[in-house]
């Protein structure tokens, strides 16, 4: 059994895991919000069902770890259920706790990656470059069967799902950037924009510099979400502490990230420090989290500074990243920005707030279910004849790019940063 949090910060206050899960009254009002329930009609793949499974595990009334694990691993952790829930039962946290209770040893690969993230991010960057070279040369595709045979089908799927293999990562690209004395904001480089989509990071920096004033690019550690969701909490805590210390070195400016999953995680750092002995870290985490902003929130706040309708003529829609809309409640802000720049070409698609099936590692381990959700999403985008679909999370970028490649090549996915930056540059003639 992996270490678990035991206590959670819920909408109703701090609660033990058991109290948090018992707040679910089984009313079932979450069911239709849950993409996996809607896709399968199976109660064990619903938020209510997952809550009950964890509750019964805690009450020692359920001895079926295999089926329980199946129910919990098929959760996308999108959090749409909590948004629908009257009592805001924190199902995602409950599911993650349930997985920790059921999990024996953390998988060696996850452990190794997490370790590298903590001790030597540089090595991680180098390893990725080697991986990307293999991908460019086509060797990785040939290697997929071997990876699958070696029990590493996750790696094979990851390779299969994305076409990105940038040689220069965001650190390389911002090498020459000079940070101002008192930056207008502090850019948090999430691993996605940093290593896989450096163009997104570049766009975020450029757009925010324009809208907020020059910001700082500081070499931050990984946020620890990977360790939090799939690995060991001790590692997640270590990375959180590193980040808090790292941010405390500078002033009190906003910390802005451009992957909603990481940003949402940064905002929940206090939950990692609920033990009495962690009181000091809890306080520090609380001040840290208060500084964190999702880049798309800022675009909304600055929407009036964006040029009007410069991107008109290209049908544009918005896909909510789950970790933006559900835990962070970000819905209106990105749309304000997108509508301002796209003008009459902005259209809302049906089910914009439904998960695309990306959801971190979900797409690599639950491929069929993920594909069902993806097809639905692509269908909704196609129904409004979208050419550009905007979003805010790395997982969505990978998943939607794959979906459009596969099912609807007329559309492409962009991070809202890329869109906003493009709009700003257009008026400046860049």
């Amino acid at each position, binding site marked *: 059994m992996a270490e678990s949090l035991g206590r959670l910060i819920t909408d*109703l206050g701090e609660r033990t895991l058991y109290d948090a899960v*018992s*707040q*679910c*009254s*089984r*009313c*079932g*009002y*979450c*069911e*239709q919000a849950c993409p996996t329930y809607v896709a*399968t*009609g*199976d*109660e*064990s793949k*619903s938020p*209510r*069902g997952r809550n*009950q*499974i964890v509750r*019964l595990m805690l009450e020692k*009334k*359920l*001895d*079926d770890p*295999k*089926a*329980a694990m*199946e*129910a919990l691993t098929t959760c996308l952790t999108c959090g749409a259920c909590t948004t*629908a829930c*009257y*009592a*805001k039962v924190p199902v995602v946290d409950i599911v993650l706790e349930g997985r920790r209770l059921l999990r024996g040893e953390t998988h060696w690969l996850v452990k190794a990656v997490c370790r590298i993230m903590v001790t030597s991010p540089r090595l991680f960057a180098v390893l990725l470059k080697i991986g990307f070279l293999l991908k460019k040369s086509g060797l990785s595709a040939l290697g997929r069967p071997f990876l699958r045979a070696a029990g590493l089908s996750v790696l094979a799927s990851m390779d299969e799902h994305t076409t990105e293999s940038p040689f220069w990562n965001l650190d390389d690209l911002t090498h020459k950037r000079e940070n101002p004395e008192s930056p207008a904001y502090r850019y948090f480089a999430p691993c996605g924009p940093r290593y896989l989509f450096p163009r997104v990071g570049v766009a975020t920096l450029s757009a925010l510099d324009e809208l907020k004033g020059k910001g700082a690019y500081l070499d931050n550690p990984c946020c620890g979400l990977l360790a939090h969701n799939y690995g060991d909490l001790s590692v997640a805590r270590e990375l959180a502490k590193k980040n808090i210390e790292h941010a405390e070195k500078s002033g009190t400016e906003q910390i802005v990230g451009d992957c909603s999953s990481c940003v949402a995680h940064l905002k929940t750092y206090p939950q990692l420090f609920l033990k009495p002995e962690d009181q000091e870290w809890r306080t520090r985490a609380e001040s840290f989290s208060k500084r964190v902003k999702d880049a798309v929130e800022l675009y909304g706040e600055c929407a009036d500074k964006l040029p009007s309708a410069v991107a008109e003529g290209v049908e544009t829609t918005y896909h909510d990243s789950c970790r933006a809309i559900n835990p962070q409640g970000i819905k209106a802000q990105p749309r304000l920005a997108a509508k301002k720049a796209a003008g009459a070409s902005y259209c809302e698609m049906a089910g914009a707030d439904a998960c695309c099936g990306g959801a971190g590692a979900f797409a690599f381990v639950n491929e069929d279910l993920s594909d069902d959700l993806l097809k639905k999403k692509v269908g909704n985008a196609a129904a409004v004849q979208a050419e550009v679909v905007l979003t805010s999370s790395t997982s969505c970028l990978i998943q939607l790019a794959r979906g459009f490649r596969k099912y609807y090549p007329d559309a492409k996915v962009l991070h809202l940063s890329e869109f906003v930056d493009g709009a700003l540059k257009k008026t400046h003639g860049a």
Partner: protein
Amino acid sequence: MRLDELRAQVAPGSLRSEPAELAVYSYDGALARARPDAVLLASGAADVRRAVIWCGENGVPFIARGAGTNLSGGCIAVKGGLVISLARLNRILSLDVAGRVACVEPGVVNLDLQKEAEKVGLFYAPDPASFRVSTLGGNAAENAGGPRCLKYGVTTNHVLAAEAVMPDGTLARFSQADDGPELLSLLVGAEGTLGVLVKLWLKLTPLPEDTRTILAGFPSIDAAVACVSAIIAAGVLPRALEAMDRPTVESVEVGRSLGYPKDPAILLIELDGPAAVCAREAAEVERLCAESGATTVRAATDPVERERLWEGRRGAYAALARLAPNVLVEDGVVPRDKLPDIVRRIQEIAAKHRVKAYLLFHAGDGNIHPNIAYDERDAEETGRVKAAGHEMLQACVELGGSLSGEHGIGLDKRDAMAWLFSDETLKLFHRVKDAVDPAHLANPDKLFPVAGKAATGRSFLRPPSGALSEYAKLLVDKVSSSPGASFRVRGASTRWKDETPAGAVELLTTGLGRIADLDKRNFTLTVETGVSIHALQRELEIQGVFVRLPKSGGTVGGLLATRPWPGLREDILGMRVLLSNGDVVELGGKVVKNVAGYDLSRLLLGSWGTFGVILEVTMKLHARPVETPSSLAPASPPKPSLWASRVRKAFDPDGRMNPGLGG
């Protein structure tokens, strides 16, 4: 249990029996839990049939389940067995815009139909609070209501036809248009105890041109209820007439301000219809509110402002759900004018059991929801909450009301049925169940007190009905004193004029000439069935009220028994019926919203006297004339259908009532 036999017949992976899977099908939205032995995620009606046949062969109970949001323990497997989940049967099969009919599978979510209907300018009227998640099959099985049912009627008023897998594994179709007894209404609201609904034809309604919302604050519940009665008496039928008490408003106002008046009672009144009518009615309602002593009246027409007025009502359950892990959403009905009494009783009962009841009610139809927040993990508290809930229901029954307006009886209230129905009526319910499901495999041990087990608590609390008239007593005596005889029930012989067969005892109903109760506060009428329709309508006209009966010769009873117009069903609330064994059973009641037990009153429509003699009928009244057909098709006795014959045996096992007339 030979599960493998069934597994081989259904899609791979759709029959589940892992402990974790059974655990998540062991509950619904209520408190009780019971694990089934297996769960079938049916992928079509054919699967349902295979499963029901397999259950029959193996003596395994089966329980149909939609979204599992039931609030009375209706879809849990109390006797184990197979849960048949219909969640995957979720296609809207057709939507006939011109005919305003949707044909759906039972797993379609209510909201999904609403969305599709709205695209073509229509809506589906029943709107239970769970409409975002609950399924149409579940809604039909429970005969769900919702705020809009005051004007538009509950689910049974919107089910035009249904296909069901019957307990013997056959597929049967029932329609309002069928000849003979109205079997369709027997299936709707039967909570899955008579078969599994696998296809529904539902009535859609044109979207209104205009909607207006009025919020009014009153110095007391009594004043608010008086206002509700005044609105209905004025002939205004709002699409919603909701009330809430001050503690409920306060619970929503934690951390935010709704801008609601601080009065002890709030009414939310929503009107819809053509713009001109809406405007006129709104003015009328505002005037009536002021006359009834409203301290504040606010009106809104634009959607944003209207939504703001609704915020407190819509946020109420959410607010209560945050007070504690569990909320008992009790569901009782009383005649509308008894609302102030039931509120006082509820408050006394809550105080006695040291619980806090938050009151929300569909005031227009006397349906009250006392809500009590608690933590099920505290056994002592849970005990007090349950006891309080039960006493509140007893109070409803004592005031002439019913046990449930829209949540169903299920498991939680099955024993309470003995408070409401006489032994004779309960026995009839059991016989109906036996006739349709002799092996008791369809959702067993629900809806009625379990045979052989003593009823808990006090029994039979319903206030005595008016005594039978002298003439009715005469008919009862005649039947009781003629064991073995066959009877010919006859009204004015307007619709059917055959001779009484030799040897048969004639039961002439024309002497049943009494208007037993004309209640202009509640707008209900109880009338003996020998009354001529002309005479009744003349009398009602003098009183300034109207009834949904077409202008026609003959008696009320003759019209109901021959059912020449399906619309007769809409306003039927209850009946008193004389059976061939001499029992007089009382079906339904005087309340306008009632889901306690099988809907046998509607079943008797079109039964041609072959089920029993309808002595009295209770119907809704209207303050304005109701549209009815100007001429009726001539009637002739129906050809007996298989299920009609089986159900008839529950009423008249030896076929002594009107033999030869379609029995």
